[in-house]
């Protein structure tokens, strides 16, 4: 007895060219002549750049403590330069024997930043913790208390200075920009025009202009002999600049809220500030997270502009390191080193903002 033909066919596996590695390649890299061309070009570029780069960075690089002359003979990067100068790069001209102080300060600051990122700690006392942290940071760097040798701000440098400018800039500019954004949407004509004037004036000039004004013009207007610290002037210029940009970002968030939110709050009898604090700002700020972080990333990197007004930030400290005639041909290594540092901080900020968007995403998912 033969099995009657049930009409079913055995399922054949898909053709070999559609699955596995080949299938994936065909679907993703070689579907159509245009994508094939792009793949080939991209492949060529990768092959011709990546291996030499790895050779330069790692395989042919010099890692040991050797003479600059030995380094010059090498094909690859000279990381000896970084090993020789890392303290100058990281701490600038801060007194050598006191460099544990900025180190402790930076670690403390990063710790506080780290745990501020966790929502469990978002309580009113966090503000006090921040205030205390920044005061301790300034005390550690500046000295003059608890038996610490005083260190003038001109000597502050490197990473601690960059972080100080960035963190204080972020922390102070944020509330200021909220006030500016609310002010710009206010019905009170004077408040409104002041905010518009401030924002448009500051946004209309480059940061460099503000820094130049603060560093070169301001001292000439001051009474003879009275001078404001150069670091403070640059810090204020950065805060002024960032807050005007951030105000517009937050205003964008405010405008995205439907009118019903305001009307609902009014019908509940909330005052203006209650409305802003409980209804409007939580939603508006949540919407604005990506552009806010964008502004902060830009600002973090813009702190390097203070090098132009001779504050020894990470960039200028690196330049000082390769001003040494024996090592000056290794400036690329110096730039690569600080690029990695900048990248780490920016990558962290960007990842954290994505995380924040996820955990705060309550009901607006599209």
């Amino acid at each position, binding site marked *: 007895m033969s099995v009657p033909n049930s009409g079913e066919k055995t399922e054949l596996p898909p053709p070999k060219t559609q699955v596995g590695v080949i299938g994936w390649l065909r679907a993703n890299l070689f579907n159509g002549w245009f994508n094939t061309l792009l793949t080939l070009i991209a492949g060529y570029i990768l092959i011709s750049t990546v291996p030499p780069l790895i050779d330069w960075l790692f395989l042919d690089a010099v890692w040991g403590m050797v003479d600059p002359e030995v380094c*010059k003979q090498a094909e690859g990067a000279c990381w000896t330069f970084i090993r*020789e*100068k890392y*303290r*100058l790069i990281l701490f*600038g*001209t801060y007194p*050598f024997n006191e460099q544990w102080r900025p180190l402790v300060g930076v670690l403390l600051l990063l710790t506080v930043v780290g745990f501020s990122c966790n929502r469990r700690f978002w309580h*009113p006392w966090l*503000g006090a913790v*921040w*205030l205390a942290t*920044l*005061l301790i940071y*300034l005390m550690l760097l*500046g000295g*003059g208390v608890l038996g610490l040798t005083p260190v003038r*701000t*001109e*000597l502050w*440098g490197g990473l601690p200075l960059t972080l100080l400018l960035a963190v*204080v800039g972020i*922390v*102070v500019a944020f*509330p*200021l920009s909220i006030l500016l954004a609310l002010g710009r949407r206010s019905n009170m004509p004077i408040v409104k025009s002041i905010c518009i004037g401030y924002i448009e004036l500051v946004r209309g000039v480059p940061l460099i202009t503000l820094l*130049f004004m603060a*560093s*070169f013009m301001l*001292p*000439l207007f*001051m*009474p*003879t*002999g*009275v*001078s*404001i*610290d*150069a*670091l*403070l002037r640059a*810090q*204020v210029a950065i805060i002024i600049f960032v807050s005007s940009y951030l105000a517009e970002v937050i205003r964008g968030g405010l405008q995205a809220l439907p009118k019903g939110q305001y009307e609902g709050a009014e019908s509940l009898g909330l005052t203006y*500030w209650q409305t802003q604090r409980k209804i409007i700002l939580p939603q508006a700020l949540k919407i604005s997270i990506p552009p806010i972080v964008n502004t902060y990333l830009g600002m973090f990197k813009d702190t390097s502009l203070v090098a*132009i*007004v*001779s504050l*020894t930030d990470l960039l*200028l400290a690196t*330049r*000082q390191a*390769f*001003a*040494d*005639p*024996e090592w*000056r*041909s290794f*400036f690329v290594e110096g730039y690569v080193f600080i690029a990695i540092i900048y990248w780490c901080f920016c990558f962290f900020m960007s990842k954290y903002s994505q995380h924040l968007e996820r955990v705060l995403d309550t009901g607006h998912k599209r």
Partner: protein
Amino acid sequence: MRRTKWFAAATVAAFVGAAGVAQAGDTFDSVMERGTVRCGVNTGLAGFSIADDQGNWTGLDVDYCRAVAAAVVGDSDKVEFVPLSAQQRFTALQSGEVDVLSRNTTWTLTRDVSLGIHFAGINFYDGQGFMVPADLGVDSAKQLDGAEVCVQTGTTTELNLADYFRAQNMSFKPVVFEGFEESLSAFFAGRCQVYTTDKSGLAAIKSVDAPNPDDYKILPETISKEPLGPSVRRGDDAWFAIAKWVLIALVQAEESGITSDNIDDMKANSDNPMVKRVLGASGDMGEKLGLDPEWAYRAIKQMGNYGEMYDRNVGMESPLGLDRGLNAQWTDGGLMYAPPIR
């Protein structure tokens, strides 16, 4: 909201607290009161002012500041160095942020007359020149018509270059760079045939940076004069005199053979009237300057004479390895000539 405002205020207050307010008035008095000389230096120029591995400032310009501090305050370490960019330097001096500007600054009429500063002398004679690869087959700058010239932007170097080629009725193609190191590596990579900067810089580049020094040569023409020297604020003649005569004393010390090693011996035993006046063993030179008799003794003892400073920072004992050239004593055919201390 309230908390954040307090926070901002506290931050600013902390800064101001750390900053303090500079003292007004007479430079000498405020230096004595502070106990330190505030000195504006370059943010990083090999041989003149550069931070070493430990962040200490060294260099010819830096050593001059230390000598002033030794003469006035008594200790060559009593200096607060303020690194300044080229654009910032004169403002910093005018506004009183620094007492002395010792930042490889060229003495020109405009700067001396209209910027509210006085040049106290010249501590380095320089001039702009050209460097070419030896195999270019060029012996004179006059053969450089149409050349591509690597130059650092935003400096007088760039202006001098344009002036020179215009005066010679030649054309050139500038290849400009913002950073010194970038411009150098472009030259050695062959992006341009000619490199131009001050001759002291060229000599250092040839010996320190060139893959093989014999492959490059410096052309004989000097196309600009660059007398570099320290300057002080206008309107304080007493301080101006101190800045000027400390420099002169360092140069005179070299001419008289006083070094940091033999100075005690010279002070005790020398019969030379000039040496005795410089070291305060006779005369009242210090008193005339408003200082004590041992002002120059301390400066020379702690920092060495001009020649020692030169050798240590830019001369044969340094990586730059410059010869004395125009900066030799007048008795050796150079331009260093100290007016008499009497």
